[in-house]
């Protein structure tokens, strides 16, 4: 596992009254698939710090972030060592927003075929975006298709 090249910035702000503290987590990683597990671990640890343990939420977050990072590293940046992937997570009282951005050419998420089609269901590829959509509560892309923003409800 490669860890040295990851950069982590965490900013925590105290919440007013009884509301949970807000925080913003930023991780920058190289376009190397060997960095994904550690980046997922960092994001999950900081996003879920201080909240009541919820194994299902942790699992959904881990898989969704791992998928988004794999897409960014492999399809977006094409594993180009000169390009980076950035992860920005914003912790809100009721939601976690996680944005993953690559430096690639972008893609049209509407062009990704449905993996449950009979001719694809037993294929070896093409389930990543489908899984993200199933595991998180909302998915949005920027216009270029280089950035995905995923929303997970804490409830």
């Amino acid at each position, binding site marked *: 596992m490669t860890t040295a090249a990851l950069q982590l910035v965490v900013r925590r702000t105290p919440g007013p009254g009884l509301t949970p503290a807000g925080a913003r987590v930023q991780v920058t990683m190289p376009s190397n*698939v060997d960095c994904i597990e550690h980046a997922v671990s960092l994001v999950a640890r900081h996003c879920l710090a201080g909240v009541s343990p919820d194994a299902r939420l942790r699992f959904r977050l881990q898989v969704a972030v791992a*998928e988004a990072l794999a897409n960014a590293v492999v399809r977006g940046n094409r594993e180009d060592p000169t390009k980076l992937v950035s992860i920005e997570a914003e912790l809100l009282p009721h939601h976690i927003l996680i944005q993953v951005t690559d430096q690639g050419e972008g893609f049209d998420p509407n062009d990704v075929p449905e993996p449950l089609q009979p001719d694809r269901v037993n294929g070896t590829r093409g*389930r990543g975006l489908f899984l993200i959509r199933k595991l998180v509560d909302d998915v949005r892309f920027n216009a270029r298709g280089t950035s995905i923003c995923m929303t997970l409800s804490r409830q």
Partner: protein
Amino acid sequence: MGFHTTRDDNGVTVVRVEGQLIVGNRQELKDLVGNALDAGERKFLIDFAAAGYIDSSGLGALVALSRRVRDAGGELRLSGLNEDLRSLFELTKLDTLFAIADTPEQALANF
């Protein structure tokens, strides 16, 4: 994160996934099973009781391995999927492709 391989008395190669099965290590699993297949092994059990999470590349690797083992006249089974991991197979309808047992003991009992 890694794989631990044993061979039971009935000649089943048991691969225990320890940690994640994701894009960064799926090739290691494919090579491990592929090499055993080339060496003549035909019965494989991949156990997830000690696994964390799986990504779509990991699922794809399992599909590819299942096909390769079946084409060689063998069989590949899965075991030890917790509720979260099993949900990934159900969402992608891969639960119908694999023989999935709750525990490795159950999977090995009638292999």
